[in-house]
């Protein structure tokens, strides 16, 4: 009996390590790869090389964001500058520093602006993922690196896209992990990326203000690389429609580890 136990104690950590050695500290190692931008500009690079990086397994939760707001009062709902977060910032919380029934502690935080997400990331010593990093990590299915080959995954993804956002979001742990061990890249909330402002629907550089674009403009689909990838197109459309202070009921974020050699580029006040 005790031999069996010993065997198990040896086997279990081994099995865990074999399953995905990159999972630790709540982050997963995403292997290096290539991101093919969904883009229409003929001058765009057709491929972006993505070096390996470490990504949060789950999106940032209400509880985690509450800790940040508590420690940084200027990011309270009542104090934040309208330049950095619009009126619906954290409006599903019951108070300045209280979550309430609409914001379960372990649900992904939403109604956060890009500026707020960046400030949080900086506070925990991380940063937001780039578009290429996020898309590369999210390209994986449950069991393969390219989810387009996984009908089960695609079906789940499209089912999520078709569902309205629930009034109360589920726990971040409820989403099934993808190949890399990352949860909820699809199926929970949309997520901010650091370079969201590089998503331009028209790609027109001469007279493009980027200021008054309607939400979810359909024009971008025309020149898209892969028009069958609806979800990727929706993300592109969403990013191109956003301003840095915008907040929505289905937009959250997660963070990427900043290696010691990478310069800290976050300069939020």
């Amino acid at each position, binding site marked *: 009996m005790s031999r069996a136990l010993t065997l198990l104690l040896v086997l279990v950590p081994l099995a865990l390590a074999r399953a995905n050695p990159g999972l630790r500290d709540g982050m997963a190692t995403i292997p290096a790869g290539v991101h093919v931008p969904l883009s229409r500009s003929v001058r*765009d690079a057709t491929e972006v090389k993505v070096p390996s990086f470490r990504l949060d397994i789950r999106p940032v939760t209400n509880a985690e964001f509450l800790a940040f707001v508590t420690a940084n009062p200027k990011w309270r709902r009542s104090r934040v500058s309208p330049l950095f977060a619009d009126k619906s910032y954290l409006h599903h919380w019951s108070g300045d520093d209280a979550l309430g029934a609409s914001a379960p502690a372990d649900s992904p935080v939403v109604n956060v602006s890009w500026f707020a997400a960046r400030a949080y990331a900086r506070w925990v010593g991380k940063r937001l993922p780039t578009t290429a990093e996020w898309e590369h990590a999210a390209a994986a299915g449950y069991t393969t690196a390219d989810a387009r080959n996984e009908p089960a995954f695609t079906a789940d993804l499209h089912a999520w896209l078709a569902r309205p956002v629930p009034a109360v979001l589920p726990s971040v742990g409820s989403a099934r992990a993808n190949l890399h061990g990352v949860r909820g890249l699809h199926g929970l909330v949309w997520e901010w990326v650091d370079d969201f402002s590089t998503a331009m629907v028209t790609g027109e*550089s001469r007279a493009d203000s980027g200021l008054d674009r309607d939400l979810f403009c359909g024009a971008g689909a025309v020149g898209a690389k892969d028009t069958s990838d609806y979800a990727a197109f929706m993300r592109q459309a969403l990013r191109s429609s956003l301003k840095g202070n915008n907040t929505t009921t289905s937009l959250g974020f997660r963070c990427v580890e900043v290696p010691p050699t990478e310069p800290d580029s976050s300069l939020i006040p």
Partner: protein
Amino acid sequence: MNTRLLLAPVMLLVTALLPAQHAGHHTEPAAPEAAANPHSQHQELAGDAFTSGSLYQLEAAFTGDDGRPVTLGSLRGRPVVLAMFFASCTYACPMIVADMTRIRDSLPADRRDRAALVLVSFDPRRDTPQVLVRYRKDRQLSPQWTLLHGDDGAVRELAALLGVKFKQEADGQFAHSNLISILNAEGEVVHQRAGLKGGLEDATAALARAAR
């Protein structure tokens, strides 16, 4: 040995061998960030309160073409004509510079020199302060012009505040918004001129009001 003791490791093993569900054992402990975080001191406000609409709340660090560190807040008190650009741009950016000059020249003579003309590069890699020195020389820009270099984060945050979108393309050129912003003495955006077409009347009127 109690069989119940064994149950937990067995479950662990079983779960671990199911490829898609292993991550449950690796979820991090809940929110340790509040306790000890060395980054939190950066988050406090500078003290002298800018207005809630002031761009100068952005404490991003820029470098002038003279090599000195510059924060946008140092422009406080002056009317500002500001645009983002990149020095190797041959099409829109020279027109933006020309338009900014015309907007400035529209001010009454006695107030013309108070305005600050600010160009911030969104090409941190190529537009070093040295490159900006050359740009100033080539374009014969007077000391009234401030040419700023910032790192990726500073540039992205300023661009996000202004609503400027930009993207580097494979050939190194940038696709970008053409946007000239007029700031009042508090650093609030009081007017933005988008695109290259059309008159400058609204921009010049906004600057004249800001210069009062």
